């Protein structure tokens, strides 16, 4: 691997992760929350790829495959939940669904 140093890739992954995290914490719309989750997962995937390439190990790409699968499953479950919640609450505001308080 030449040109791009590993650190750059990792910094990019961290920035992406932080962006996703910020979105998760500050957005109320559930679609955006889900999207932020996807971004975070992909950031983690990117970090795996970069690290795998950097150390010339195959595990990074294996893990990335796992992350993609997970993300797909998560997205489908999350969207199903989202539709159910929309049916019940008629809104996409995530703070409304706070019935499970202690």
């Amino acid at each position, binding site marked *: 691997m030449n040109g791009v140093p590993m650190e750059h890739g990792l910094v990019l992954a961290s920035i992406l992760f932080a962006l996703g*995290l910020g979105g998760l914490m500050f957005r109320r719309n559930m679609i955006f929350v889900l999207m932020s989750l996807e971004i975070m997962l992909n950031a983690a995937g990117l970090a795996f790829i970069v690290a795998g390439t950097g150390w010339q190990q195959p595990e990074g790409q294996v893990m990335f495959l796992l992350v993609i699968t997970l993300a797909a499953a998560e997205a489908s479950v999350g969207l199903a939940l989202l539709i159910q919640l929309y049916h019940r609450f008629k809104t996409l505001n995530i703070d409304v669904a706070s019935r499970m308080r202690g």
Partner: protein
Amino acid sequence: MMELLTTLSTTVSTTLSTTMLLPLTFLLPLLGTLILAFSRGTLGYRSSALVGVGSIGLAALVTAVIALGFAADPAPQNMTLWTWISVGDFTPSMGLALDGLALTMLGVITGVGFFIHLFAAWYMRGEEGITRFYTYMNLFVFSMVLLVLGDNLLLLFLGWEGVGMCSYLLISYYYQNSANGWAGFKAFIITRIGDVFLAIGMFLLFSRLGTLDIAEILTLAPKAWQAGDTTVELAAFLLLGGALGKSAQLPLHTWLADAMAGPTPVSALIHAATMVTAGVYLIARMHGIFELAPVALYATGVIGALTLLMAGFAALAQTDIKRVLAYSTMSQIGYMFLALGVGAFDTAIFHLMTHAFFKALLFLSAGAVIVSCHHEQDMRRLGGLWRKLPLAYMGFVVGGAALAALPLVSAGFYSKDEILWQALAADQQGLLIAGLVGALLTSLYTLRLIIGTFHGVAQSDNARHAETGRGLAHGLPLLVLAVLSTFLGAWITPPLSGVLPPGPGEGVHAGHGALELMAAATALAGMALGVWLFGLKRSWLRPAKHGMGAGLWQLWHHAWGFDILYDWTLVRPYRGLVALLKSDVIEGFFRLLAKLVRLVHLGLSRTQTGRLRGYAATMVIGATLILLSLALMTQGT
């Protein structure tokens, strides 16, 4: 006549072995109890009374047969029904022992008991629950007979507790009035305190001598202990404690006056003739222990003397005729304890017997007055009854004469004089003087009782419209007991010679005549004073309104204030303790623990807002903190 008796008794003892008859004396009353208890209300008044009186009558007959057999062959008899408990050395049996002492008691219990049962059939007419009454009464006789026949301390204790229970049940017989229930409660608890002493005494004797058999204890004790040994003194004091509770002596005497809440025949049987004298019987039975314990024996005499004075004064200031008799019972048992205390065990039993006769007579006569006067028993509201109730009046006069020890003609004179003589012979001047003062007091309150109840003018409608009692059940018991309360009763000599040691005055005669004169003079002087005070100057019958007289009246009326003392020192603190602990303080600690957990739960559950974004934020902060600390730690090393 004597010849006939002897032949009769020999034939009886050959045909019917008396040992075979012995269990019948308590099985018959038990049978009566069971029939009455399981009748479940199917028996009427007549059949209940028939079963109740009949069972005791048969028991009295059996006792008479046994007594005849015993007269022919006065050897102690033993009979073991079965071994009650057998674990190692601990083998108390269901065993009976008949000797002169037991026979005397047996005669008093079934004989006097039968007449009282008979009288009760008249007394309880028209009362509800006659079946219950006779159930308890028969059960009482059963327990009392076991008490005197038991050949070991545990069986004696069985009877001892049994009579206590029956006493409780009969005192609170009129259950609808709470006060009666509380009177029974008090009687049971105070005697139970005494019983605990007796129980500990049993534990001590068993642990030292390894047996509970009374005869064995009496033979082993002199070998095991020197006279005055601490252990034997302790054992004697513990037995004395038991006797004090049961016999209403200082300081466990306060229950007896309240026990008068029961029907009058109950007072006659339990609280005059038999149960309250069980303490005297116990000490006489365990005389071997007391002879080894001079201090305890002396204490017995002193307690007896103090009680007889205390109760004598208290009897002077009562207005309820039954309470007068109750205090006089206490005082007379004080005489018996005095006799025990000087070592004259047989004299104590003799006085126990004559006392049973004349005190039962007095109580039954009082019962006759009470029923005739429509349940009026306050002396201040009676009076002028002697014409209307001649039989009751006769009973009071004969019984009162015996109580006040009218010289020569009354039974009480012979037994009380004997006690005073034994005290003199034992060189116990203090006890003798107390006995003489007591005799004066006895004459005084007896005269006050008789004059207040029967002479003067009727003080209330109840007394004016008194109805004379009729019938065999009313007359026969009074007549028989009256005969027994005269010098004829004193002719009955209890066969105690082989059982109890002779008293200190045995075989000594110097000064006996002088003492007899002195005792007779005291009694007569008391009576003369009584006639003058209460008969001629009738104002003495009423309590003084002010001055020292009023103070003394209050003091004696409340029997020197023991009730108030116990109330403040025992009852109130206990109730305070109950109130304090009521909510289970120790468990409160665990409840506190539970509260703490709940508090923590409340605090922590605040953090569960249910907002997803909040959880995410917390997670991020937590993760960051952990990572940071990890980083710092790796740098540190």
